[in-house]
């Protein structure tokens, strides 16, 4: 059963006097246990794609369905609740919770359901799993960018989400750390059945996933194996081609 489904998702932004189409008719279905890697350069629309998939931004056209329910039909409160439970996000700007230690920030999503000591134990385990156990006792300013990213990943995974949206989770990591993080993502997809949509800036980062595609100029380019018999569709090209004749 499809967990996350984007159909014809379009998103426009005003940039000065011009309007940019950050997403132009994105179709994407993600099943539980799917690990999808999206390859996009800067300004390709990849962060917007994840924000729309998370329900943080509403698409201008098209629909986003999570767990067979259109996000647009859910209340704001309901969407916010999803982000605390079923959907885990890792953003590039590594968000922190002010006033909390690194360990408590990671444990935060579990504080409601668990005794604090238990939640902190889980946070320790999770930090170890993502390869940065030393972060548990560090102060925020002592963390490197790579450690911050992994703290954010631990924070996202500890709630046991059904969907993980990760925006360049391998940024600022060296080759060994990168493979470790990709390995964790792959194993939560394979073993826990978490659906993952990850963005990546280059090819080596894509190769631990199950499916790869490319995002450029707001359009998703998929290998033929992805297309299930239909031809890749570029509506604007067809139209421009007609006009230019």
């Amino acid at each position, binding site marked *: 059963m499809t967990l996350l489904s984007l159909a014809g998702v379009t998103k426009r932004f005003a940039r000065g006097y011009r309007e940019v189409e950050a997403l132009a008719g994105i179709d994407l279905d993600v099943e539980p246990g799917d690990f999808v890697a999206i*390859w996009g*350069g800067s300004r390709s629309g990849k962060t917007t794609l994840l924000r729309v998939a998370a329900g943080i931004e509403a698409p201008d056209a098209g629909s986003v369905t999570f767990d067979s329910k259109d996000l647009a039909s859910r209340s704001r409160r309901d969407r916010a609740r999803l982000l605390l439970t079923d959907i885990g996000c890792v953003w590039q700007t590594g968000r922190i919770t002010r006033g909390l230690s690194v360990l408590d920030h990671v444990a935060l999503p579990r504080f409601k359901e668990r005794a604090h000591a238990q939640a902190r134990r889980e946070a320790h385990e999770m930090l170890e799993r993502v390869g940065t156990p030393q972060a548990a006792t560090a102060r925020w300013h002592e963390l490197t960018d790579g450690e911050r990213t992994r703290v954010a990943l631990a924070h996202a995974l500890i709630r046991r989400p059904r969907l993980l949206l990760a925006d360049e989770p391998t940024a600022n990591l060296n*080759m*060994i750390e*990168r*493979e*470790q993080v990709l*390995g964790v993502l*792959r194993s939560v997809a394979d073993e826990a059945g978490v659906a993952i949509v990850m963005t990546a800036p*280059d*090819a*080596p980062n*894509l*190769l*631990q*996933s*199950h499916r*790869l*595609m*490319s995002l*450029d*100029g707001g*359009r998703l*380019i*998929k*290998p*033929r*194996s992805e297309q299930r018999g239909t031809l*890749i569709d*570029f509506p604007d*090209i067809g139209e*421009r*081609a007609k006009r*230019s004749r």
Partner: protein
Amino acid sequence: MSVKYAVLGLLAQRRGYGYDLVQRFEEQVGPAWQLNAGAIYVALDKLEQEGLVRPLTPEDGAAPATRRRTARGAPRVIYEATPEGLERFEDWMATGSSMSPLREELHLKLALSQPRNLPRLIELTYEQEQACLERLEQHLGGAASFEELLSSTPPWSVVASVMVRDAEIAHLQATVEWLRRIREAMRWLQERPQALRPPLR
């Protein structure tokens, strides 16, 4: 031409027959080379003429193997590298490598295109990017990553094959980045037809 030295190198590792060499080539060099199996046999003939490899005879004590037959019933010939062959292979390893020219059909189409081809050219860049993704898909979940390599002590053959595989990944990445650049440029031009004046005569 370099297939000749690759065959010589495979025989320097250990003796082998034609089909065995085809398989070992695929295994060690990878699918990106798109080897035509016939090229191996051509190379073997040439190497034999030059005295760099020789077929084993029953006197070499390889009789049981040479008596094996191929599917079509012809006797299977097993080759080994001669001392001159080994020396030539070492020389080849020590010399610099040539770079093959970049020859893609898309480059020709771009070079010979007209402004009126723009919409189709943009579409071609998408198709080409799609083709790159398909090639990249073959490397999904690849057996060994550099991480595994660096954290253990793998045999050299594994390190070598991962490095060769990485060459294709690097090439595909560069191609996709190039496609995105020219697509952006062509889109920019498409939105500004005045920029597409015909060349001065």
